[in-house]
């Protein structure tokens, strides 16, 4: 019973703390650029403001335009239910949920692409075609990474992979994990639309991918889109922590253990976020035509990781 409550709490943590994570990233980026920066609670205020605004819908739009943000948000929240955060178990677990997780994220993207096309502006079409390109190229390496880890752990569920990894020796770094981590880092950047692939703060028509898709949205729909985007970032960061550094998760459900698990989770997340902020402030965005090559590196690393599961015997 206690475990069940914890599972719900960790899922809500992923969903509700996501805007805060975004706020912290922009604050860190501001500090690196010697600026004051907005408060870390700003994304919440922004969401509040958008939820209370009137929604404007283009004349040509159909039901798809209105329902796309809701579908994307729902899919992302359900995907959050599969991730282990504080202890190696999740709200929803089934053998093979690594595939479900990937496709829940894909459903969100698919819905957003359709919605952008339905909006009727030329930017929406441009954005969704670019998004489709990036999504198609990022899906294969993400799958291969998860497959490689599933082969090692001999289980197809995210929380059981985490549970298996905790039992391993921290110092026995395996080649598979290193390659998979490198591939997943590249994929995570592409999936969440961060800087080397897409700039979340720009509205320059030549470069934007995700922003071009959401250009026609306003009010509550835009709020849902922004929120699900923030959750997605949180999801992928937590996925990396859960798959590659789950040490510190509490194995028993006690208040003290859970507090320690929360602390270590926050610490690991902070490391990832600082890394992301430094990379975003020091790396230039790639040209659109260089993005496939960037993701090709991830594919190569992921394939190598899968093959290494056969080569190296543990």
């Amino acid at each position, binding site marked *: 019973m206690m475990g069940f409550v914890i599972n719900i709490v960790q899922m809500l943590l992923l969903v509700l703390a996501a805007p805060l994570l975004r706020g912290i990233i922009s604050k860190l980026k501001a500090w690196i650029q010697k600026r004051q920066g907005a408060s870390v609670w700003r994304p919440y205020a922004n969401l509040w403001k958008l939820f209370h605004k009137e929604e404007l819908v283009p004349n040509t739009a159909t039901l798809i335009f209105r329902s796309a943000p809701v579908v994307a948000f729902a899919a992302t929240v359900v995907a959050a239910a599969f991730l282990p955060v504080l202890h190696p178990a999740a709200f929803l677990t089934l053998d093979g949920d690594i595939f479900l997780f990937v496709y829940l994220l894909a459903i969100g993207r698919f819905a957003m692409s359709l919605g952008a096309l339905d909006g009727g502006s030329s930017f929406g079409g441009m954005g969704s075609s670019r998004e489709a390109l990036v999504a198609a190229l990022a899906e294969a390496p993400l799958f291969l990474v998860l497959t490689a880890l599933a082969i090692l752990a001999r289980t197809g569920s995210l929380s059981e992979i985490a549970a298996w990894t905790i039992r391993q020796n921290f110092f026995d770094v395996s080649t598979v994990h290193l390659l998979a981590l490198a591939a997943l880092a590249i994929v995570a950047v592409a999936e969440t639309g961060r800087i080397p692939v897409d700039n979340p703060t720009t509205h320059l028509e030549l470069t934007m991918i995700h922003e071009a898709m959401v250009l026609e949205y306003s009010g509550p729909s835009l709020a849902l889109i922004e929120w699900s985007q923030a959750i997605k970032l949180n999801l992928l960061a937590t996925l990396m922590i859960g798959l590659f550094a789950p040490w510190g998760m509490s194995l028993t459900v006690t208040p003290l253990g859970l507090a320690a698990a929360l602390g270590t989770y926050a610490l690991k997340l902070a490391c990832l976020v600082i890394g992301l902020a430094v990379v975003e402030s020091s790396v230039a965005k790639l040209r659109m035509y260089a993005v496939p090559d960037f993701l090709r590196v991830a594919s190569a*690393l992921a394939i190598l990781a899968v093959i290494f599961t056969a080569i190296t015997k543990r």
Partner: protein
Amino acid sequence: MGLFELAAAKMLSSAAMLLFGTVLLMATAKRISTCVYLFACQSAILTAEVVAAGYVQHMREAYIIAGMVLLVKVFAIPFALLWLMKKLRTAHDVGASLSPGYSVFVMSGLIILSFAAVRLYLIELHATEVILAAAVALILNGAFLMVTRSKALMLMMGLLVLENGIFLAALVTTFGMPLIIEIGIVFDLLIGLFLMGIFVFRIRDTFDHLDVSRLRGLRG
């Protein structure tokens, strides 16, 4: 004492993986200076490997070799290369004839190939499979870098990576070559670098660039 042994054993087992990492990063590098830093990292890993091997097999000579490798490959050669780049004042890109994505694909293939090649000789050599494969992979990938990068400095980088591979192969299969031979090899490398440095200056003075794929174009 237990801690040292543990560290040495871990170094021996996980060094190969780190070497794969440096080599794959070299494939994606866009600037020559990045490759130089990666080479320094790779040599540092090799140094640690030599120290670990020396500690495990109780060889005094290994420490001298490690010191020499550290001095020459981690500090002297990278510094010389960076100095050379500053002096030459030419473009910093590696002149890749194959994009990073494809390079990583080919290099991954070469790494797998080296595992397949090593497996046949494993029983006779009594060496750890992963490290021997890493040595072969370094040799193959060094040659691959030389073939696909068109800047003269990158050819030198490829050769240095290849040499690192040969060094590692010698270390794993013979449990350390005699000291005198190691000294000879290191000096060979230094002299080679010196000659190549002069050669690079000559290429630059004659052609105004360092792109070896355009060396056949006549200047009139």
